[in-house]
């Protein structure tokens, strides 16, 4: 299997005030194979989200390279990049404009890519149904639906352009346990249906969930990769002290 995403020696430095700098990422490298699901775990501030935000260009890296589908990310235009990489956010309701109907939010990327209004509507309704929502939700506003339903819509939005890489940045963290399960089931369904056409980068601090859902796992701490490898292998008998501590604190 080829690597769909390669992150090479990523560094990210945030200026905090005039003199203090925060090294959010230090030489972070990992790779995601096509069709695979990669879990990224670590405590808050370990650089999980920053890595995701660099890949999606919401944050600029200070140094390092991101290779997407064999091409350096710097050679890919924004428009093209967002057809390949999409992200599901931690806060489902806040990730939709409160004044825009869910359907219009989901279909925004289609409209931006020149798909006609009627075709967008048709495709969005199909996506909503695929993500387990009735198509009438097209006309609902974000505050009229629950967090879980909003997250389903967010997944529908991320899938609108048939991306090859789906980044779930703590996508289940703000949901309660039963809804979490439903979302995971939805993601599993999407993986089954699309096979190697979709690869998922699953950022979470829920280790049990990552073990259950992901093939590979990357453990991060203080902006560095501590350990990476097979999910079961690392979670069941890890070699690094930090990973052991992290797992012991949850299980």
């Amino acid at each position: 299997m080829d690597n769909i995403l390669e992150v090479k020696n990523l560094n990210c430095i945030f200026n905090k005030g005039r003199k203090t700098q925060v090294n959010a990422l230090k030489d972070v490298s990992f790779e995601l194979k096509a069709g695979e699901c990669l879990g990224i775990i670590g405590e808050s501030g370990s650089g999980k989200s920053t890595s995701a935000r660099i890949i999606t260009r919401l944050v600029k890296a200070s140094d390092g390279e991101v290779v997407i589908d064999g091409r350096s990310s710097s050679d890919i235009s924004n428009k093209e990049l967002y057809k390949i990489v999409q992200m599901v956010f931690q806060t489902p309701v806040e990730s939709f404009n409160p004044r825009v109907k869910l359907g219009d939010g989901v279909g925004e990327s289609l409209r931006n890519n020149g798909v006609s209004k009627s075709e967008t509507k048709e495709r969005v309704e199909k996506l909503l149904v695929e993500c387990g929502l009735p198509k009438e939700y097209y006309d609902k506003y974000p505050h009229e639906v629950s967090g879980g339903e909003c997250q389903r819509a967010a997944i529908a939005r991320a899938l609108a352009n048939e991306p090859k890489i789906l980044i779930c940045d703590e996508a289940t963290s703000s949901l309660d346990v039963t809804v979490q399960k439903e979302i995971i089931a939805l993601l599993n369904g999407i993986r089954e249906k699309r096979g190697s056409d979709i690869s998922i980068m699953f950022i979470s601090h829920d280790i049990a969930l990552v073990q259950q859902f992901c093939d590979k796992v990357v453990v991060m701490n203080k902006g560095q990769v501590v350990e990476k490898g097979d999910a079961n292998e690392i979670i069941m008998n890890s070699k690094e002290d930090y990973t052991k501590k992290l797992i012991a604190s949850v299980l």
Partner: protein
Amino acid sequence: MKKMKINTKKKLIFFGTLAVLLLVFSIFSEYLTPYDPYEQDLSIAKQAPSAEHLLGTDRYGRDMLSRVIIGSQASIYSTLILVAVITIIGTIIGIICGLSGKAVDVILMRISDIFLAFPGLVFALAIAGVLGGGIHNAIIALAAVSWPKFARLARSQTLAIKETAFIEASKLSGTGVFKMVFKHILPNIIGPILVTAVLDIGTMMMELAGLSFLGLGAKPPIAEWGSMMSDARSMLATAPWIVMAPGIAIFISVMIFNLLGDTLRDFADPKGR
């Protein structure tokens, strides 16, 4: 929830209708005056309100009711134009500052700081003094000193909304800057700006009146509520109706616009709709 929905809508319709009535009233004010508002008759000067002159007469014997009615044109229109100008200019500058990088933001905000550092009316006086009298110049002068408030407001709102997940999500949907501003940013920041604008109508009415009083705004004999009030200040003890009539007119207009502003804010919030 549903009860509130109806109430806000009803209130909006009510105050909106009042505001529109006020505007229509001022458009057709020329045809509504019972007497010629500019005709002087010293034999009936400073008469108290009576059946013939409902609001009395001023020191030149002009009918106060007619003057208040015709005065609505200068007062309401110039104020609305002024508020519209500062709201639009301020909001555009504020959004540019909020979205653009450091340099543009710093330069524009320091300029607005310079304007904010002076007492507004005094600075406006200086500008109006240079430009000369007349209601147009008064509007330009007040606009020049009043936009920073809206720029600051729009900037802080833009900065707050720029970091939200839905803006990032729409970036990931490949949305360009213009669409982003008009579809995602403006609709979400316009509420407080609009409310501030409508609430500012009263202040601006008074500031325009202040300039008129100093001979830098509406020039006599043009009837303008503010200048009419200032004009009659010395007669407050002897002929209070000359001050009261335009005063009450300002009070009613300001109230209508303030309540309209409040209702608009409630309505603009989708959670309260």
